[in-house]
C-alpha cells in the first residue's frame, strides 16, 4: 500500500485520477464522439459543482464550520440572480452581446453582494456563538436553513420560476458529432477563475495558515496579534458570496428553479467536499471533477447505477483514503 502510494505520488498523485477514469471509460464506451461529449459535459458539470462547493469547502475546511445553511445561500443567489435577470429582460432580449453580458454581470454582482451581506449577518448572528462545537453548528445552521427556505417561499412563492438566459449562452457548439453546450463552457471558465483566485490567496499569502491555526487554537492566534474574529467574518463572507455566485450560475443552467434547489444540490456538494479532502480547494476541485465525470460515464454505461454512483464513489475513496483525496491537514 505504502509503496503503491509512493509510486502514485511520483507520477502526479491523485491528480491523475480523473485521467485514469476517463481512459477506462474510453475503453468501455467505445464510441469516441459519445465519449468526448460525455467527458466535456462531465468536466463542465464538475466545475459547476465546484462553484457551489467551493464556498462550503472554504468555510468547512478552513474554519471547521459545518454550514448546512450553505444551501440556503445557493438558493438565494439563484433567486436573486433570476429576479435581476427577469428585470433586465430588455437587455437580455437585445441582440447585442454587450448588453447581454452586462445584464448577466449585474445579476451575478447582485447575487455576490447579497452573499457578502448575508455572510456577514450569518457569521455575526448565527455562527459566532457556536465555533468549535460541531453539533451545535449543524443544528443552528439547519435552523437557519429552514428559516431562509421559508423566507424564499414567502418572497418568491413555491411555483417554479423560470430563469431567462442571455442569448449568447444558449445552444451548443457542434464539433463533428460532439456537442458542447455554450452555457457549460461559460460555467467552466467561471469555475476556473474562482479556483485560481482561491488557490493564490490561500497558498501565496499567510491567510490560509492563519485561518487553520485559528480554528485549532483561536486564543493563541490572537495572542500572536491577529484579529481572528474579523478574519473569520471575512472568510465566511467570501464563502457565502461564492455560494450565492454558484447559485446564480446554477440558476442559469437549470433555467427553472424552485426554493429547494440548494437543498437538492447539498448532498452532492457535501460528497465533493468530503472526497476531495477537508480544507483543500484543490481537493474540492478534484472531487467535483471526479463526481462530474463518473456520474456521466456511469449514466451512459450503466444507467441503473447512476443514482448510487456518487455514493459508491465516496465509499470507495473513503475506504482507500479515509481523509479524502487531498486533505490539507494530514
Amino acid at each position, binding site marked *: 500500500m505504502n509503496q503503491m502510494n509512493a509510486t502514485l505520488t511520483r507520477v502526479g498523485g491523485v491528480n491523475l485520477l480523473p485521467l485514469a477514469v476517463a481512459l477506462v471509460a474510453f475503453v468501455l464506451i467505445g464510441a469516441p464522439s459519445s465519449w468526448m461529449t460525455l467527458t466535456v459535459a462531465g468536466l463542465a458539470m464538475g466545475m459547476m459543482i465546484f462553484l457551489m462547493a467551493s464556498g462550503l469547502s472554504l468555510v468547512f475546511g478552513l474554519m471547521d464550520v459545518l454550514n448546512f445553511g450553505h444551501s440556503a445561500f445557493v438558493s438565494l443567489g439563484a433567486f436573486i440572480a433570476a429576479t435581476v435577470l427577469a428585470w433586465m429582460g430588455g437587455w437580455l432580449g437585445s441582440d447585442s452581446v454587450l448588453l447581454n453580458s452586462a445584464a448577466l454581470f449585474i445579476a451575478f454582482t447582485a447575487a455576490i453582494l447579497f452573499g457578502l451581506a448575508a455572510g456577514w449577518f450569518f457569521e455575526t448572528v448565527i455562527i459566532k456563538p457556536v465555533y468549535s462545537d460541531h453539533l451545535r453548528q449543524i443544528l443552528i445552521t439547519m435552523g437557519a436553513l429552514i428559516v431562509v427556505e421559508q423566507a424564499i417561499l414567502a418572497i418568491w412563492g*413555491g411555483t417554479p420560476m423560470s430563469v431567462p438566459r442571455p442569448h449568447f449562452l444558449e445552444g451548443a457548439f457542434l464539433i463533428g458529432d460532439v456537442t458542447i453546450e455554450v452555457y457549460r463552457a461559460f460555467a467552466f471558465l467561471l469555475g476556473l477563475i474562482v479556483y485560481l483566485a482561491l488557490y493564490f490567496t490561500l497558498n501565496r499569502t499567510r491567510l490560509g495558515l492563519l485561518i487553520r491555526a485559528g480554528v485549532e487554537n483561536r486564543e493563541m492566534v490572537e495572542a500572536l496579534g491577529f484579529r481572528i474574529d474579523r478574519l473569520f467574518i471575512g472568510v465566511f463572507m467570501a464563502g457565502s458570496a461564492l455560494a450565492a455566485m454558484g447559485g446564480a450560475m446554477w440558476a442559469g443552467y437549470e433555467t427553472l428553479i424552485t426554493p429547494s434547489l440548494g437543498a437538492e444540490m447539498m448532498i452532492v456538494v457535501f460528497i465533493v467536499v468530503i472526497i476531495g479532502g477537508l480544507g483543500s480547494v484543490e481537493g474540492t476541485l478534484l472531487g467535483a471533477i471526479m463526481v462530474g465525470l463518473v456520474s456521466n460515464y456511469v449514466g451512459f454505461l450503466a444507467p441503473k447505477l447512476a443514482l448510487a454512483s456518487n455514493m459508491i464513489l465516496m465509499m470507495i475513496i473513503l475506504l482507500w483514503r479515509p481523509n479524502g483525496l487531498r486533505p490539507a491537514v494530514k
Partner: protein
Amino acid sequence: QDPVKIGLVHGISGHAFEAFSKQAQTGFELGIEYATGGTNEIKGRPVELVIKDSQFKPDVARAVLAEAYGDDEVLLAVGATSSGVTQAMLPIAEEYEKILIVEPAVADSLTGPDSNRYVFKTSRNSSMDMQAQALALQPDENLVVATLAEDYAFGRDGIEAFKAALDGSGATVVTEEYVPQGTTDFTAVAERMFNALKDEEGRKVILIYIAGGGDAPGKIQAMDPGRYDIEISMGGHILPVLPTYKRFPGLEGAVYYYYEAFDNEINNWLVETHMERFDSPPDFFTAGGMSAALAVVAALEAAPEWDTETLIETMEGMSWDTPKGGMTFRAEDHQALQDMLHFKIKVEDDVEWAIPEKVRIIPAEEMNIPIGREN
C-alpha cells in the same frame, strides 16, 4: 340552518408544491361560488369550508383528515396534492365511512385495489396523461420513440401506460430510459437515446415524462437532436413552467388544461373571474379544484338524503359539467373520466409564456383507461 361542512385537506406548508395546493383551494372556492350562484348555499344550507394543512406529511394528513371527519364533522372531504399523502388518507375515509374526493393528486393507484368505495377522484390520472400523449403523437408504423422517465413507480407506470396506448398502432419504442429522481444532467441519457434513434427510419421522437425539475427537454434540446431529425415530445405544464416551452415551437403533446383551449360557459366564467380577482389566468389546479367543487354541489343537489350511502349511490355514474367539459364518475372505481387537450406550442413575443394552442380535444371515450378496482 346548519352549515354544510366540507373539509379541504391539502399541503399548504413545508414543500415547494404548496402553491399548487393553494390553486386547488382557490379553484374550489370559485367552484362553490359558481355552482351556488354566489349564494354559497346548497339546498338552503350555507357551505362552510374547513381547511386543514397536511404539511405534505402522510401521518399529519391522516390525523387532520380524521379530525375533520371526527371532530369537525364535515360531510365529506377533498384532498390532497401529493399522491403519497393521499394514499395514506384513503383508509381514514373508510374508517369514518365518509366520502373523500381526491383532487389534485394523480396516481392511478388512488382508485386502485388499495382504495375503497368511499373514495372518488376528480383529478385526472397518469394513464390519462400518457394515453392522451400517445394519441397526440398520432402513432403509426412510421413512428419510432425513445422514452425518458424518472426511475420510480410514477415514471415506470406512466411509460407502461404510454406503451399500452401505442399497442396495435404499429409504432415502436426503441429504448426506455430511466434516470434517478432529481437528475439535473441529462447528457449521458441523451447520448444513449441519440445512439438508439439516429440510425432508425421514420419519424423519430424522444418522449419526455419527467414530473420534477431538471429541465430535461431544454438540456436535450441544447444538444441539438435536430441534427439526427429527432424531435422532442412532452406533456404540457402549469403556467409558470410554460415560458420554458418557448424553446420548442411546434412541439406537440397532450395536457390536462389550458385556459384558452376550453370553450364553455363555466370556463369562460372561471377565466373572467380569475383575471378580475387575481390578474392572472387560472391554471391546472384552479380548474381541478373547481371541478371538485362542482362535483360536490352536483351530488348534494341530486341526492335526496346526505348520508354517505345515498351520496355514494348518487355519485356513482354521475355526470356533471366542469371548466374542461363534462366529467363522469365511473361506477366501478369512482375515477372521473374526462377530456384532454392535444396542443401544439405557439410562440408569441408579447406573451410571457409559450402558448399550447389547441389542436383538438381528445374526448374521454377515445382513451381506454384501465379500471382500478370494482367497488
